[in-house]
């Protein structure tokens, strides 16, 4: 027996912002869940199981928040699962929820993910000194900046590519009412003057700290068929991981990411991703990761990803493969939710629900997330047509 066909039938998210002091974590998550259920034309009573994801608990200092959230999500008496894959967790959570439906165990599954960065201090939590090494760590930016430098060196990309991506994503975010940052006035010249936080990563090339949540309702084919609204059919999913540190590791383009995308394209029956995919929401917390992931995903050859940026291929208007029309992680980063926002935005595109950042005629979309030290990968392909 093959997997049960399933679709995203509801997408919800909060208005991402630096501080939602007006709600608890539970209130934040409930807000996204209610929006996804409303989008699906369902209520909590219709849901069979709930899958919750967030990045490490130390970010807010609340251990196992899923216990508390199960109550807030009216999930008493239902199966509740927690997923942990660091920054990729929003994507992994969506995939775990989809697998509950594909397996035939459940018909309607709610996936939720969140981060309330203002309740804690992620920079501190990601820089806690470890006992066997020198405490030079400086958050995610400090971790990734040396790998960005390595990419720039090996690809011989012009130094302005990171700034180009930043201006694109910040501009795209202005068409997305849910985005945290709405900064319409960036120019390439201004971006190049932005101060270096973790040289070679500039301030404008860095994601914000956000409070936010996202939710998806995933339903089996028979349930989805009976619903009147648009659906995003899940054509393929893939997850991979690898150790954070090992000798000879390719830290610019990790093997786990290459394997993950190769499996994704094979499962979806896609042989030429650059031509066959209409739009992609990929996890770019630092702008240089756009060209890096374009290569890792197989949209471009090694050391050639930056050319797609320079040629405008990834632009929302006029590009043949718009990347992050929502403004991406670079414009909203509720860490645990960020992967699910990518997956949900991909679904919104093929459902035709992306509003002012809709890519015209989008039929096939990719959601992508990565986490940890570029060691967890989660991806899906969604389509307007039933696979």
């Amino acid at each position, binding site marked *: 027996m093959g997997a049960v066909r399933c679709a995203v039938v509801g997408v919800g998210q909060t208005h991402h912002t630096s501080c939602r002091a007006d709600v608890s974590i539970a209130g934040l998550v409930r807000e996204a869940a209610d929006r996804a259920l409303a989008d699906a034309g369902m209520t909590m009573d219709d849901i069979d199981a709930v899958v919750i994801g967030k990045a490490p608990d130390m970010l807010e200092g609340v251990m196992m928040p899923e216990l508390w959230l199960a109550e807030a999500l009216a999930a008493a008496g239902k199966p509740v699962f927690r997923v942990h894959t660091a920054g990729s967790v929003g994507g992994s959570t969506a995939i775990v929820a989809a697998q509950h439906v594909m397996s035939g165990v459940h018909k309607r599954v709610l996936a939720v993910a969140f981060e309330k960065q203002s309740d804690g201090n992620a920079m501190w939590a990601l820089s806690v000194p470890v006992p*066997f*090494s020198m405490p*030079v760590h*400086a958050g995610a930016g400090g971790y990734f900046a*040396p790998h960005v430098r*390595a990419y720039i060196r090996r690809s011989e990309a012009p130094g302005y590519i990171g700034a180009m991506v930043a201006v694109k994503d910040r501009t795209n975010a202005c068409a997305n009412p849910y985005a945290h940052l709405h900064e319409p006035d960036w120019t390439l010249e201004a971006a190049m003057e932005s101060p270096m936080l973790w*040289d070679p990563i500039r301030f404008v090339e860095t994601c914000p700290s956000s409070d936010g949540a996202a939710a998806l309702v995933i339903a089996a084919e028979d349930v989805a068929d009976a619903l009147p609204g648009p659906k995003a059919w899940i054509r393929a999913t893939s997850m991979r991981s690898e150790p954070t*540190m090992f000798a*000879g590791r390719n830290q*610019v383009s990790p093997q786990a990411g290459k394997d993950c995308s190769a499996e994704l394209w094979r499962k979806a029956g896609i042989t030429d991703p650059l031509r066959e995919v209409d739009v992609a929401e990929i996890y770019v917390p630092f702008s240089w990761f756009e060209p890096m992931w374009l290569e890792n995903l197989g949209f471009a050859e090694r050391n050639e990803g930056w050319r797609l940026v320079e040629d405008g291929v990834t632009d929302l208007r006029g590009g043949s493969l718009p990347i992050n029309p929502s403004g991406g992680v670079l414009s909203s980063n509720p860490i645990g939710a960020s992967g699910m926002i990518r997956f949900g935005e991909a679904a919104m595109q093929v459902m035709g629900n992306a509003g002012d950042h809709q890519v015209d005629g989008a039929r096939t979309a990719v959601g992508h997330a990565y986490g940890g030290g570029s060691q967890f990968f989660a991806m899906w392909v969604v389509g307007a047509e039933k696979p």
Partner: protein
Amino acid sequence: MSNEAEDVLRIRTPIGVDYAWSAGRRSSAYLNGLLEGRLIGKRCPSCTRVYFPPRNGNCPMCGVLLVDDDVEVGPNGTVTTFCVVNVPFLGQKITPPYVAATILLDGADIGMQHLLQEVDAADVRMGMRVEPVWAPREDWGPTMENITHFRPSGEPDVDFTDYAGQL
């Protein structure tokens, strides 16, 4: 009752704890080496690569126990890549700006992060050769902080192709 302007929306609740860390035999050899001013790595019997520090006891890729025999690495090494940290944050141990460099010690097959000083940040290069600067011996403990920082050794730079496989 309090009026709306005085409603309590948030409170600050600090938490903290000191943990013990059981290093395991191979990492203990590394920590004991630091007490003597030696840099101790361990070799994988399968892929023959030398891990410094031998953090897992196992080779992360081959999944087998590292050989117990010590492999002394360094003390000099090569900067494979680096960043300049300009951003201050809560709990930071080193005052910015500073250069956090990935250093491949001679004889090791994996880089480690350390502080690079006694050089202007603008003059730091990928491929630069560096040497450790040790703290006074009476201050040593079982920690990598026995080396206060690395500095340029004056040796010629290493060619990019010779360390590109480390990126």
